[in-house]
């Protein structure tokens, strides 16, 4: 059972709020959009899917990409599957993704090297995630070291 998310809808609410900010952030968004790929994140416990489209023109003005909460028809270039709680800690900057893959916590497929190259780009977002939780009144979900 997830420590941080009640269910998939709860997860979508949090990531929706967070990604909305990340994909409008000029520094992060500009660099992310250069990746030119579609990434599907698959979560377990709760089961959920989020797709981030950095390949097609953004659907909204002021955004550097488009995200879809829940299953969607876009064909991904790369996918990554992990427990939702692991992802929650990752976005706090508390999980080493290389170790996650090495230990089999994270499974990946497709153009994984393209996704790996996004890691340094999204690093500044680690500071944004706890702020997003706070703004949503979810201080109790903020994880510290």
């Amino acid at each position: 059972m997830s420590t941080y998310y009640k269910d998939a809808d709860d997860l979508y609410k949090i990531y929706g709020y967070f990604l909305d900010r990340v994909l409008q952030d000029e520094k992060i968004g500009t660099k992310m959009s250069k990746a030119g790929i579609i990434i599907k994140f698959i979560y377990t416990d709760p089961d959920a899917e989020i797709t981030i489209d950095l390949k097609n023109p953004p659907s909204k003005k002021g955004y550097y990409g488009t995200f879809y909460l829940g299953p969607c028809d876009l064909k991904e270039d790369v996918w990554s599957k992990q427990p939702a709680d692991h992802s929650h800690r990752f976005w706090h900057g508390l999980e080493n993704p290389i170790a996650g893959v090495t230990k089999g916590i994270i499974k990946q497929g497709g153009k994984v090297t393209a996704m790996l190259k996004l890691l340094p780009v999204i690093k500044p977002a680690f500071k944004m995630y706890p702020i997003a939780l706070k703004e949503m009144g979810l201080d109790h979900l903020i994880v510290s070291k």
Partner: protein
Amino acid sequence: MHGNTGKIADISLAEGTVTMLNLPEDTYRSFIGGSGLGAKLFWDRADFSADPLSPEALFILMNGPLTGIRLSGASRMSATARSPLTGGLAESSCGGYFAPALRLAGYDGLVITGRADKPSVICIDKDIITIEDAASLWGRGIEESTMALHGTYGKKSTSLVIGPAGENLVPFACILNEAHHAFGRCGMGAVMGSKNLKAIVVKEAKGELSLADPDRVKAMIKELTPRIREHLISQVLHDFGTSGNLEGHMYSGDVPVKNWTSNFNEEMGDALTGSTLSERFLKKVGTCAYCAVACKRIVQVDEGPYAIPEGPGPEYETVVSFGSLLGTPDLAAVCKAGRVCNDLGMDTISAGATIAWAMEAYERGDLTDERTGGMALRWGDMDLVANSILPMMASRSGKLGELLSKGSAGAARAIGGNTINYTAQSKGLEAPMHDPRGGHGHALAYAVSPRGACHVQTAMHFMETGACNYPEIGFEFDLEALTGDGKPETMVLAAAIGCIENSACLCQFADRSFTMQEIAELINAAAGYKYTLSEMMDAGMRGYDLKRCINFLLGFTAADDTLSPRLLEPARDGDTAGIEIHFDDMKKKFYHLMELDPVKGVPSRRRLEAEGLSDEAERIWPGTS
């Protein structure tokens, strides 16, 4: 004997004779092969008072028990000698094509002594080993020499070749196979040069291996190969080369900039990273024998001042040594400098690091125009580096060439003052391009590695970054890069694992997805050692401890297990800024765990005897019990 052939050619260049060494099988089993067996041969045969470049000095090339089995990552071999750069134990590892060729020709290794009376080539043609004239090659670059050797000995031949730097005894001269794969570190090229040995050639890689359990070897190769290919690290290496994640490493403080004065520069990270290399200059990928990873780059720079024809491209260490370390984001210039340095036959790490040190010394006013012969050493002046400084270093010409040909520590000692403080080295060996301030375990690993600052003599680099996980030996990743917590305990395992990898002669990229149990099973299937996991770990540790004993007899003590001050300064910028490395605490705990004497730096008599090194113990601890 299986896997190994049981034949080591003992070649005296002075006498012009070749005899066969047949070591007991138990000696192979005790030291695995490669660097462990090289260390054992060195211990048994070396004159510890001999100058590294004297005729008496030993030069040992050793294969591992897996060499030639057609598995990705099993085409490496190890060289052992006394280093002309550090004065301590030298070991270096090289991939490519020579190791399997030597094995298929019937040999586990070569022990070379003496000095030929004229430039020579050792030619190995199955059972016949001859020493032939190489006068026409002397003075030529490695690329040209390699081509000439193919012309003389046939297209199927493969060779180890030195360049002008090795001939001129530059103490960080390297040896190249097929002008691309390097015994880079510790000055092995100078050791060959001191023996008037321009090249070693195997005429044809043809022969049969005798394996203990050929079916099991075949099954394991079938099982492991897809896993190697699909491993995250392999995919990055294949797509973008060893510099594939350079910009990512830049953010974690791993990439040194401008002689280690900084470890963060976004522009350089983007400009120098592997994907940029692929987009701008990659012609095709290259590989070592039998390898599915194919991390090598074949590049071409079409135009501009750094245009180079299609040929070997730079790997990560070269990209950083001639890139960010010298303060340039110019990747074309890096490709050119790397090609020039390789052709001259110098280790790109030591060469780049020495030039970077000199640039800082010039900026500080410690290196004057009088010392440089009027050359202004400015950060990022790659025209000067590629076209003037590197050739001068290789030929030891001019005041600057003579000074920098000593390596950074030697040059710093020559000009004095506090200039040694801003070299980046341990035991005189320049640090590779992974900044310990981005991973504190590296600081310990560099300091306690027997050959000096090195990230591949132990497995710490991959263990600290999370790229391996060995629950079967009690290592499950739980390390934070920017602390010393858990690093001494990790280092104990890393020392043994590194020695196993370098003795089995496995590539540390290709074997990342292997469990330690699988490595033991592979060795058993190939060589019939019948290792349990713990016996293999013991063999790795035995090798590591023996190397420490060798260093002690070569004059090194615990005080040498340290880093130059620059490497221990807190970082000045980036995410790692201001974080202190608690080096002394890590070293103290590691020494305790390893039963290392706090003065001598060698294992206790009890520990050596428990490892089966009783003779060694008596020599290190005479008259004690």
